[in-house]
């Protein structure tokens, strides 16, 4: 179990069809920060590394990862700093996430392995593959390829058009964040809150996520994610930088795109990517899928991934 402390009256929520707890759990030290790592499948099988999206956690792969493990892989996922069971660190940045990712990759071994990332995790692993191409055999990006449109879990607005209110709000948040706590509520209440951002995911799945990504405190359930974190980054960022680096990727790339527009989505379209694709790229738009394509269609996405790897 990821969350061993689920009181008995809530255990029914920790069951979801197809969801399997990891077979192993361990920690990796990344320059003093402890990163929680989970594994599904045979320990001696070929490894695959997964990275979750912003404000998610490794357990969001509880349905998808076992399907890859059934395909003959050792599937490794980790909670990014501040998320899930990893340390709530003092500082958060893209560079730190990349460094933590390297620490997890180093705990697996020096051989090149396939990487699969969703949303922000896809963007993170794409940059990892650009920085350390010798460590990556295949890159699979689940609705996290860059687009000029928008990236809600990286940048909430175009950074060059800062407004006084946004800047002031961010600074006010920094002044107050030492005292912030995520608000507690009932298990189903947390699921409903998350449902506002994840309208296409079932209430039962979101309840399952609460059992894994939240903790039961005296005053109710509370998401584990560090309250000092805010959705989206803050700082200079331009999607063109990412797009222009895409053609330089050397390993086979599978990019799966959502086709249904939703709040969290990146709105990346095949035609936007065409001028930037590396030689061995396969881009597939998944009909009828929202941003969480691997949660909406776990069997189809796992099959596509396994076919691509094999």
């Amino acid at each position, binding site marked *: 179990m990821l969350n061993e402390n689920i009181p008995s009256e809530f255990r029914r929520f920790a069951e979801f069809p197809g969801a399997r707890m990891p077979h192993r759990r361990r920690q990796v030290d990344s*320059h003093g920060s402890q990163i929680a790592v989970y594994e599904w499948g045979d320990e001696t099988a070929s490894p695959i590394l997964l990275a979750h999206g912003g404000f998610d956690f490794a357990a969001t792969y509880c349905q998808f990862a076992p399907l890859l493990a059934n395909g003959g892989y050792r599937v490794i996922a980790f909670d990014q700093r501040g998320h899930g069971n990893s340390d709530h660190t003092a500082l958060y*940045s893209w560079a*730190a996430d990349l460094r933590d990712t390297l620490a997890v990759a180093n705990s697996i071994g020096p051989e090149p392995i396939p990487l699969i990332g969703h949303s922000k995790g896809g963007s993170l692993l794409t940059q990892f593959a650009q920085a350390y191409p010798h460590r990556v055999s295949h890159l699979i990006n689940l609705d996290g390829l860059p687009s000029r449109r928008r990236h809600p879990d990286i940048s909430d607005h175009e950074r060059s058009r800062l407004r006084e209110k946004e800047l*002031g709000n961010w600074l006010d948040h*920094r*002044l107050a964040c*030492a005292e912030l706590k995520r608000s507690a509520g009932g298990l189903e209440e947390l699921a409903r809150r998350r449902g506002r951002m994840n309208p296409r995911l079932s209430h039962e799945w979101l309840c399952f996520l609460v059992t894994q990504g939240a903790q039961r405190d005296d005053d109710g359930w509370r998401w584990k994610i560090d309250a000092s974190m805010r959705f989206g980054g803050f*700082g200079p960022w*331009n999607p063109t930088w990412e797009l222009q680096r895409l053609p330089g990727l050397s390993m086979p790339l599978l990019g799966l795109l959502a086709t249904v527009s939703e709040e969290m989505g990146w709105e990346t379209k095949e035609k936007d990517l065409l001028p930037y694709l590396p030689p061995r790229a396969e881009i597939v738009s998944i009909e009828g899928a929202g941003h969480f394509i691997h949660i909406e269609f776990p069997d189809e996405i796992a099959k596509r991934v396994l076919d691509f790897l094999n």
Partner: protein
Amino acid sequence: MTNKTQWLRHGKIKLALHTVRESMEEGSHPLLLLHGLGERTPETLFDEFSSWPGQIFGLDFTGHGLSDIPKGGGYTAELLMGDADAALNQIGPATVCGRGLGAYVALMLAGGRPRQVRGAILCDGPGLAGGGPQPSNPQIIHPDPHCAPPPDPMAMAELSNDIRPADYAMSYVLQATHLSPVIHPITVCAVQKTKWITAVCEAIETEESTLKDALEIYSRFVPNEESEA
């Protein structure tokens, strides 16, 4: 020189805010010094500061001087703007003078808190350029953990690589020039013309000057009722 240090909280970090010199003239607003990359608040001041009438404070940024050194890095210039804002929140409206990295942070704070910053002075110093105006080769920054802090080797490595696009710097210039009660809220004293400094210099209403003159002008700023509203 005084040697008073007060402690501020910015998120999980405890910051050291030093009183470098007491006020010489009652009612004058304070000066906040922001050091360069790898530096700390100076114990002695350059002569240029001797005629500043108000109190003079110096902030040690996260990972520098007496401030906390966090585990695992994750530094950004925006985080340091939050450090500087914690100091501003403590001391009230102030003129901000930054060296190198501190100059970039001073500019950001002038844009982020345009009504509280009574002029930002941008000087040469370590870490002025950062990682340049656009990303270089993608890299994973993991510095030598055996370099004893302070300064935190993570801060040294990460804040030498943070991207500082000219248009991004300009967005802070625009905030400051549009919203500050000070007529010329940003003064560039830096000789080194990085891309972002060049953009700032080219901007309308941005002044280039000597440090002494800039301090002299900003020390005379008197807020009117409207600007304090």
